[in-house]
């Protein structure tokens, strides 16, 4: 998988987030527009990292539900930047071959005539390596 480094370490490194700063106030989850779609809630990401349970994180649906809207980053009173932590976990997944959430074959069926390029580009960047 990775070279001697645990996945939680990898998540911490990629995201640059120090999960120990979190005081578990829940503001991120209170803010998140995708909360209902997520299996692991934004505030739980911190606990999963602290408990060294990257396994659950990388298999979580939440990685694909985060919109990168930065509302949690903006409002977090402890400057934890929960959104970056979610993105860190997502990166761990997409950097592994064959673990792409979005595959080129499914693009055509997604297309509609109004769809802006921006959407394709953004989705590709977020969902694939």
């Amino acid at each position, binding site marked *: 998988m990775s070279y001697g480094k645990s996945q939680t370490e990898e998540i911490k490194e990629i995201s640059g987030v120090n999960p120990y700063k979190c005081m578990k106030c829940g503001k991120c989850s209170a803010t998140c*527009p995708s909360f209902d779609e997520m299996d692991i809630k934004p505030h739980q990401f911190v606990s999963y990292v602290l408990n060294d349970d990257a396994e659950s994180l990388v298999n979580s649906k939440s990685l694909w539900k985060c919109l*990168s809207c930065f509302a949690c980053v903006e409002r977090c009173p402890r400057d934890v930047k929960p959104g970056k932590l979610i993105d860190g976990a997502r990166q761990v997944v997409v950097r592994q071959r064959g673990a792409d959430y979005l595959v080129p074959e499914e693009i055509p069926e997604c297309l509609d005539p109004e769809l*802006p390029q*921006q959407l394709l*580009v953004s989705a590709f*960047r977020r969902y694939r390596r």
Partner: protein
Amino acid sequence: MKYSYYPGCTLKTKAKELDVYARASAEALGFELEEIAEWQCCGGVYPLGADEIASKLSSVRALNAAKEKGQDLVTLCSACHHVIKRVNDDMKNVDDIQTRANNYMELDVPYKGETEVLHYLEVLRDRIGFDTLKEKIVNPLKGRKIGAYYGCLLLRPSGLMAFDNPENPSIIEEFIRAIGAEPVVYPYRNECCGGYISLKEQNLARNMTAKIMDSAAGFGAELLITACPLCLYNLNLCRNKAGIPVYYFTELLAEALGVKREVRAS
């Protein structure tokens, strides 16, 4: 006044209106947008990983092109603005990224974040001034009740974007006032439209934009304006329900400046 201009991918295709009306309005307001030669796509989203470099290089190229011309860099699309502004901040303040990006680029003079990145709205507010804009309006959009839709990317994270108050912004409302219309303030104007989620899960984006549309309509908005093609697309997903049309802010600007028809004709 001449600015370097980064249109971005969508403004050349699906969001032509955003682009052409902006250029025409700029001309009417006495500033010029000089498109950067051979610009490349910004990538649409800012790469959050602390170790990412390659995905930031297209922004650095655009920033450096503006620097070489000695111009500020103007953007229109919220996503491009977000990405380029943040990459610029990285180049200015994050030593590691600065070094590595410059190593890739092999420029004669390393780029260190010298370019100032301005959104078109910031040019109107901070360079032209909304009072001056008001004076130049020939066709004030009297009586139109317009809701501003900001979305996420222009405002957040506020420390880096430094665009406006992230929770209660006012720049587009001031813009609406300047073109002679009446701004409608509603609380969800800075809530996410769903962004790229609409590629695979359109229903989720539709739920989010429905909330935004309902709120805007509830407070009396008759139309919404935005600066982002993706926001516009997502908002239009639920257009049938609330029935509020969505426009690019530049289209109304061109209309108020009396240059809309010329653009259409050309």
